[in-house]
């Protein structure tokens, strides 16, 4: 529509008072892309330059617009987004998002190799991932005389919500563990609040599959926000994954040296799911740096700990499911340094203790309290073990697993109680 009144797309309504003088704005020297739509005019001098609102469109522009908007823009949009997905899949992914599929692949491989062995599976977070040397238990004999298959399915940033998801996936695939060990990640039971750590905050929503998103959303405090974030990443991946794109350009996805200090998920995994910590440095400076990092990450959250209803519900769901499916299950309180434990406020610690007592009472649950199994020197940051810590933990874990297997053997008193 030009300012002189050639109102394309508009008509004067009859029955209304006559329209006053047509809209006239001063002429423009703007050469925005949009002025392509304006008719050619002599270019005004600088001092007379003033903006103009013109909507005169050339016939060619009119013809183009429909084709452009209906076909070419959607076409290139879809291509660009698919290209990003392809690029991400082929060339780069964050190690943390890469860990779950890798571990699942290894587990499937082990199960295919040893289909008849009773499976002992430990679900947990990065603490389990780095602590539990499942390979040392594999091959040892179960009470029924069969050699065991033990696997560490500890994954970085996984708490109760993720354990519920993984249990669901295992059962959907027909994998029924002979014994299931669940890490009790108290820090992830924190009620989701802005600025404080909880399992929700650790979860990278854009990277979840549709199935994972649909399963996990029931445990989210702000479901709408979670679903919106996920949808953004699906409908506009360049927007949803923009930070990862920047990291890729900066070369951060490949873990530059300073980041490897804080994130061990780049390390390889052994055939039984344990994160290989063999070459992990063990100097006072390194540990001081790691402890400072962990303190910075968790201190405020643990000092303000409040048991979240949704994360607690996830644990209830796991144990209810195990009871329904008749799968023996035990809860493991992973080793944590005294300094780290002291970060919890007395009220927060009381809430955790009460919750544990409730779980034990309601589900007749075995709880392995390994909290103080390790010395301070066995940790690198107060809650993740060094190699020595992993060895000590596994050594003490082996008899506990055997005891549990014996207690839950069909025909034993515990098994009968559970029935």
């Amino acid at each position: 529509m030009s300012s002189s009144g050639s109102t394309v797309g508009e008509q004067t309504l009859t029955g209304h008072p006559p329209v006053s003088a047509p809209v006239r704005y001063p002429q423009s020297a703007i050469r925005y892309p949009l002025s392509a739509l304006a008719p050619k005019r002599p270019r005004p001098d600088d001092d007379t330059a003033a903006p103009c609102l013109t909507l005169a469109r050339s016939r060619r522009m009119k013809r183009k617009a429909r084709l452009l908007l209906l076909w070419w823009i959607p076409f290139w949009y879809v291509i660009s987004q698919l290209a990003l997905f392809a690029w991400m899949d082929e060339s780069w992914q964050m190690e943390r998002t890469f860990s779950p599929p890798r571990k699942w692949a290894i587990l499937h491989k082990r199960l295919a190799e040893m289909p008849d062995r009773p499976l002992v599976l430990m679900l947990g977070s990065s603490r389990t991932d780095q602590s539990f040397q499942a390979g040392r238990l594999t091959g040892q004999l179960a009470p029924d005389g069969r050699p065991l298959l033990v696997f560490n399915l500890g994954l970085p940033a996984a708490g109760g919500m993720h354990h519920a998801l993984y249990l669901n996936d295992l059962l959907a695939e027909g994998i029924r563990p002979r014994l299931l060990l669940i890490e009790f990640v108290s820090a992830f039971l924190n009620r989701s609040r802005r600025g404080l750590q909880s399992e929700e905050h650790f979860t990278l929503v854009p990277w979840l599959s549709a199935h994972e998103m649909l399963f996990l959303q029931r445990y989210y405090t702000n479901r709408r926000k979670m679903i919106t974030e996920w949808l953004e990443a699906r409908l506009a991946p360049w927007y949803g994954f923009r930070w990862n794109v920047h990291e890729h350009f900066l070369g951060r996805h490949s873990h530059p040296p300073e980041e490897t200090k804080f994130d061990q998920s780049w390390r390889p995994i052994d055939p039984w799911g344990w994160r290989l910590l063999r070459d992990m440095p063990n100097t006072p400076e390194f540990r001081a740096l790691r402890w400072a990092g962990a303190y910075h990450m968790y201190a405020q959250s643990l000092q303000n700990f409040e048991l979240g209803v949704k994360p607690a519900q996830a644990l209830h769901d796991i144990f209810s499911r195990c009871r329904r499916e008749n799968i023996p299950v035990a809860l493991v309180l992973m080793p944590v340094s005294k300094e780290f434990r002291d970060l919890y406020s007395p009220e927060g610690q009381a809430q955790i203790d009460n919750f544990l007592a409730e779980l034990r009472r309601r589900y007749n649950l075995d709880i392995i309290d390994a909290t103080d199994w390790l010395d301070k020197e066995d940790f690198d940051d107060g809650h993740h073990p060094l190699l020595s810590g992993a060895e000590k933990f596994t050594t003490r874990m082996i008899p506990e697993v055997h005891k549990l297997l014996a207690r839950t053997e069909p025909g034993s008193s515990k098994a009968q109680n559970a029935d």
Partner: protein
Amino acid sequence: MLFCSWTFFQFFTLVFALYWFIPWRRLHWEIPLPRQRRFRLTGDEVRVWLLLVASFYFYASWSRKLALLIVVSTLLDYCIGLGLEAWQDSRLRRALLTLSITANLGLLCFFKYSNFFLASLDEVLIAAGAPVWFNTLRIILPIGISFYTFEAINYTVDVYRRHVKAERNPAHLLFFVLFFPHLVAGPIVRAKDFLPQIRRSKRWSWARFQLGGEYFLLGMLKKWVVADQLALYADPVFADPSAYGSLANWIAMLAFALQIYCDFSGYSDMALGTAHMLGYKLAVNFNMPYLATSVSDYWRRNHISLSTWLRDYLFIPLGGSRGTFWQTCRNNLITMTLGGLWHGANWNFALWGLVHGVSLSVNRAFRSFCQVRPGLDNFLKSWLGTALRRAVTFFWLAQGLVLFRAPTFALTQAMYARLWFPVEGADVNHIYGYNLFWGIVAGFVLFHVAACRQWWERLSLRLPTPILGFTYVLALVLCMVMAPIFVKPFLYMQF
């Protein structure tokens, strides 16, 4: 609800779909009323109501009470407008106009300036040693109050001057004030431009939708790719200039100069685009202000809807430039100081406006000086002179923006000290270092060159449609990648 947010996308998609995809044009209701009257409701009128309800929701999603406040104040202006048109007695009309201006400015002053004046009075009293002070009031500043107040005043003054007819349909007047694209941060719409558009029937046009989309995309590019990225260089330094070296302070100053332009013009472009997609047009608000060759030229190119409003409703009523040189200077100073204060309740803004008032007066004097010196005048009109004028003007404007941005006088002083007395110090900690800053500056310059030489204007008509589509998507992808992790509100929404 910010334009570049998921919430707005959902809101606008719904409004757009209801507005265009329902065949409103076929709708024609006639409801019989007593005394053989009929109430006619056409599809176009329903569309206006739809946008009115959407606009109300848009504002009410932030504050329902304050949305009602706009409605009440606009209805008062509606009644005053009818009175102004009906009555011939000049005294009565003047009284009505005074009532309207007092009510509108009263609300603006109450919400925006009461705490500012109380705090200033406190400082004066404390300085004088008086043992009393005033508690500041708990007031929420209604978003966009400065914009819609000026629109309402524009309406009643124009009706008073008989430049426009009083609007008889209250829904139309409400829609003029509440129309969501310009509601919270302008452009300041004139009644004589907008009210006639409401009465026109709207028809779908692909070209117009493309135009709106282009404006919106351009706005997004300015906001996300330039303004929000440059904010990462400006914000930390303006918060504590002493913690950074002179280089960081210079970069922060330049970054803010580009940020504020791109942030506000980005918003204006999105507003224009959104309005176009709904069949309305708003005034263009910017015309490459950093190509201005003088401060007066800058005000013809920057925030045009405000500067023309101030010109028409403040500067000219004060006498404009018809009087002596000193009277014009006085009018400039008053207009620009009030214009500065319009931006925010802070003495920094008033001082910034005052500096611009002085600059305009100096500019006027310099022009008179040059007019009697043809050699100098010709040199200044040459390409070298023009480049020099542009550089000096930009430099002066950027320096002035320190006053605009720094939250306190103390920080302003600290920043000027760092700018003018070189000091070694920390640099801004940005993931890309200063590379991104220089990249954006280069892009900004390139954009201006392209705009001046009409590259895009020529190209876009000649490019094959697939390539044109690819270009748009490329721009969209760039916006997406550069979008900040946390959406930043537009700077002018606080005004």
